[in-house]
């Protein structure tokens, strides 16, 4: 019998231009390839998490993948209640045999795009724009600063969009922040801000500067104006979870995915070919190799809530 996979999204909603959307894409890919349908649910408040999880588990959904660290508490419970069900959680570790925890070293990917940004920048000033001000986003920022500084950026202007969830969906403000950073001299801007990022890339493009996408490959949003994207392969994680379950290869445990594991990376495609010269490419590849080899350690903001760069 076919498996009955289920996918759960976080408050941001399926279409958050971020990990929710990425996991959705992964599931869609799986569906397209195997023809196996999956069920999904978008929570609209914290209470629904446990409810939704149990609900799917009771209905015999298996495996059940969920995006977002906020699922952890609920999963802790449910995973025990349903030892037979296979779970996968993105962005958080839940230490249960039947749970696959997928976490990413966003700092590493961000480091790489930081390097590219610094090299692409003429002013040697680059910008970072985060969405809502939470530690996870600061981890992106910190890695980025590290890379940029390492590649000779003199200054990294950092902004957060706001303190409410609205900060994830305010492209107008995102664009304005981008313009401000450009006024301050930044000419490459990295946005880790969900829907707000759309506005950032737009503004950068409008001003003839470069933007950097996040999570999924956003090079296509402003072709030729997006230097690259820090891709975080949440889609792959979801896809693999479903696939492994289908082929009885599902394993619990922690997948800590960095550059080495290809969990994070920078995106190259036709849209940004022209923007990335060989020097840049070489430098990034070198940085990547160093990190994989461990000769360069990228600081993880959340390990100590601070950024040394």
């Amino acid at each position, binding site marked *: 019998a076919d498996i009955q996979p289920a996918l759960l999204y976080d408050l941001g909603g*399926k279409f958050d*231009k971020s990990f929710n959307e990425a996991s959705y894409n992964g599931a869609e890919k799986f569906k397209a390839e195997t023809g196996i349908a999956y069920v999904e649910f978008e929570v609209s408040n914290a209470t629904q998490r446990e409810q939704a999880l149990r609900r799917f588990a009771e209905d015999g959904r298996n495996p059940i993948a969920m995006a977002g660290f906020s699922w952890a508490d609920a999963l802790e419970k449910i995973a025990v209640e349903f030892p037979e069900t296979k779970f996968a959680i993105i962005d958080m570790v839940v230490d249960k045999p039947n749970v696959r925890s997928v976490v990413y070293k966003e700092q590493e990917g961000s480091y790489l795009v930081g390097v590219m940004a610094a090299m692409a920048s003429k002013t040697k000033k680059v910008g970072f724009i985060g969405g809502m001000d939470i530690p996870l986003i600061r981890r992106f920022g910190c890695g980025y600063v590290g890379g940029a500084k390492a590649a000779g950026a003199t200054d990294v202007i950092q902004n957060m969009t706001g303190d409410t969830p609205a900060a994830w969906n305010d*492209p107008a*403000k995102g664009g304005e922040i981008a313009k401000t950073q450009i006024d301050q001299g930044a000419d490459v801007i990295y946005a880790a801000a969900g829907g707000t990022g759309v506005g950032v890339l*737009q503004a950068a493009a409008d001003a003839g500067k470069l933007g950097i996408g996040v999570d999924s490959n956003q090079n296509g949003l402003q072709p030729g104006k997006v230097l690259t994207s820090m891709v975080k392969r949440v889609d792959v994680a979801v896809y693999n979870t479903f696939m492994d379950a289908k082929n009885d290869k599902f394993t619990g445990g922690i997948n800590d995915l960095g550059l080495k594991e290809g969990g994070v990376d920078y995106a190259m495609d036709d849209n940004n070919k022209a923007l990335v010269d060989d020097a840049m490419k070489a430098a990034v590849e070198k940085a990547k190799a160093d990190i994989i080899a461990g000769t360069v350690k990228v600081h993880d903001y959340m390990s100590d809530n601070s950024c040394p760069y």
Partner: protein
Amino acid sequence: MDLFNAVIQVLDSTIRLSVPLLLACLAGLYSERAGIFDIGLEGKMLVGAFAGAAAASVFHSAYLGLGMAILISVAFALVHGFASITHRGNQIVSGVAINFIAAGSTIMLGQAWFQQGGRTPALSSDERFGAIIWPGADALRSVPILGPIYSELISGHSVLVYVAFLAVPFTWWVLFRTRFGLRMRAVGENPAAVDTAGISVAWLRYRALICTGVLTGIAGAYLSMVQNGGFVKDMTAGKGYIALAALIFAKWKPVNAMFACLLFGFLDALSIRLQGTPLPLIGKVPVQLMQALPYILTVILLAGFIGKAIPPRAGGVPYVKER
């Protein structure tokens, strides 16, 4: 000189940030002056933004987009009217309802039509309202002081920005120099007087709401077709409520409204600009404080300088002839 540039830049972004607030604020002014509270500005802006971007991307025309934005937003305004004028419903409840419906339907339709996650396709430059460069703007840029002011602040905005600022004197003129304005103000103060004068209270208020719809439509279009190249779910991000605050701040007067919105825009621009950069004397302040700064300052200004704001007397109460 460097500081001067910074100032110019902050002011420039002040203008861009205030425009959506200003349009929404004037929109609210029309309906509240006519005695209809409108907490649904947010929703009407949102549907405007969506309809605008959607139409623009489908018909490849910015102006068609704008037209559609206005049309739909007016339609929602009329729903508000139907509830609060024709059926004497609670105006705040009706406004809340409109915000709900707007939030839900834009995402749903967006996904159904474009399958881009509630987002409309990215608009090409000819599907948006580009910047208008004024004659000699580039030539004069080098001129000290005046040059930047002219070429940065005055020139180089999209047509909707100029529309917004022209809407201020226009609204003032309508309100205080035309028959319609006189009647509108009257119906907001004492509908019975209007009624006994043989004018239809309902029709008058409907017309006011249509004006509201037009302006919120433009406001939405500005968000999705000028500041951004397409619609993103919930992209109004609370601007409707800020506009409402601005309206009260402005004591329901058009010119004040402009200054109130510019103030909000300025505080916002300032907090963006200052984020992360250490301040003189104070030093480095936590980001959250910077985020809250505009709101804190608003409260301080309100308490410190703006006196009591008396709303239109008939505001919020449905007009009932026979008790």
